[in-house]
């Protein structure tokens, strides 16, 4: 049933795409955390005209499936924009993933922002700190600790979502697995290989999470 030799043969083939998955994940993670923070802060202070815009952005990006977003971006916009037309598929995927994960992260961060008691914000205001200074120096560092578990949820979802690249013909781990599967139909072996690879990646993330968690805990 389970073909061990096939498994050991296919494992390195799939693992060879690690680099694509990882580089996509990390690139998009960096951009999305930036987007997430900015949108969360706008949402927190309900900054006049920016707020409705971000709400709309959130509702579209969170509200529609990622595949459809990528499709419209890469194939729809390509008809009107030379830039998109000539864009490398990897760039397009990274961009759409950043925008999408950014939307999710912004909500995770907003949750954390809610957890900081208003007393400290008042203290900052009374010292003459601007809202931006307050959020940067007082609120965000504390919100971060509370948001961390959710942000890692988002990161893991992002990692998995990079498999979207295969839609544009870029083979990541999952794309490679699908190709191999379509060829050999040995999905048990292939999925096991995929699970192990992702699992190790997520274990890596979790370790990183634990370190950050412990750092945050010191204060309390």
């Amino acid at each position, binding site marked *: 049933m389970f073909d061990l030799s096939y498994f050991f043969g296919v494992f390195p083939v799939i693992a060879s795409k690690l680099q694509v998955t990882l580089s996509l994940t990390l690139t998009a993670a960096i951009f999305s955390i930036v987007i997430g923070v900015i949108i969360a802060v706008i949402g927190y202070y309900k900054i006049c005209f920016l707020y409705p815009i971000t709400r709309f952005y959130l509702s579209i990006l969170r509200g529609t499936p990622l595949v459809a977003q990528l499709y419209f971006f890469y194939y729809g916009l390509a008809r009107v924009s030379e830039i998109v037309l000539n864009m490398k598929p990897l760039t397009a995927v990274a961009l759409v993933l950043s925008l999408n994960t950014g939307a999710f992260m912004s909500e995770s961060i907003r949750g954390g922002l809610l957890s900081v008691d208003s*007393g*400290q914000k*008042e*203290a*900052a*205001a*009374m*010292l*003459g*700190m*601007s809202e931006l*200074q307050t959020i940067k*120096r*007082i609120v965000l*560092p*504390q919100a971060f600790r509370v948001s961390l578990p959710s942000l890692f949820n988002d990161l893991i979802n992002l990692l998995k979502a990079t498999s979207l690249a295969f839609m544009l013909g870029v083979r990541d781990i999952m794309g490679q697995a699908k190709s191999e599967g379509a060829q050999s139909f040995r999905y048990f072996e292939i999925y096991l290989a995929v699970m192990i690879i992702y699992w190790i990646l997520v274990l890596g993330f979790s370790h990183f999470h634990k370190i950050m968690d412990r750092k945050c805990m*010191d*204060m*309390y």
Partner: protein
Amino acid sequence: MIEIRDLRKSFDGRTDILKDINITIKKGEIVAILGSSGTGKSTLLRCLNYLTKPTNGSIRIGTTSIDAKKHTKKDIMELRSHSAMVFQNYNLFKNKTAMENIIEALICINKKSKKDAQRIGLQLLEKVGMLDRKDFYPSKLSGGQQQRIGIARALAVEPEVLLFDEPTSALDPELVGEVLSTIQKVAQEGATMVLVTHEIMFARKIATRILFMAEGTIVADGTPEEILDFPKDERLKRFLDYNVN
């Protein structure tokens, strides 16, 4: 220095917590506000720097005047730049150590170098007797220690007006004495002060003027002697009678 005109505050739109408050405070005055719990002392103090937004009335501190009905964010920022406050429940920054709490505004508002700020921070920590706790986070400080950091944080920015909300509630007599002398020293340097306190002896020692509040209004206003030794208002008399002494 401070001028409050027709100040009114209601949280729910029905009951007024503050009613038609009119006060003028001169530069260098040390004004103590007395009154029983829940009469609006903290609310009045918080209105002075717009942490609580008044429903009505206008407030002037120094050169900045601001009206409840029409004002900009910039006005509020300017108003706040004249004053600093010590909160009843301290409100220390939880993600900053004692030292960092004190120098936060120096670095971030007064644009002092980190070294300068820390020099000032050390002086203040010394003044409130907290040198040995300078790297502790608030969660690891005792109540009185937190309160002293709160006081040091307000003093650090050297504002024209200092607002104290029960600054000695968690302090023992020894420390109260020290805070008293610190505050008097700052007053001599020309700062104006408004203190909410329920320690009548403390008010007598420190204040040049005492206001007595009841049910959201100021029912008595005068020198410590006038208020404490020759009270006229009935509620004030009862209030003083209960004094444990």
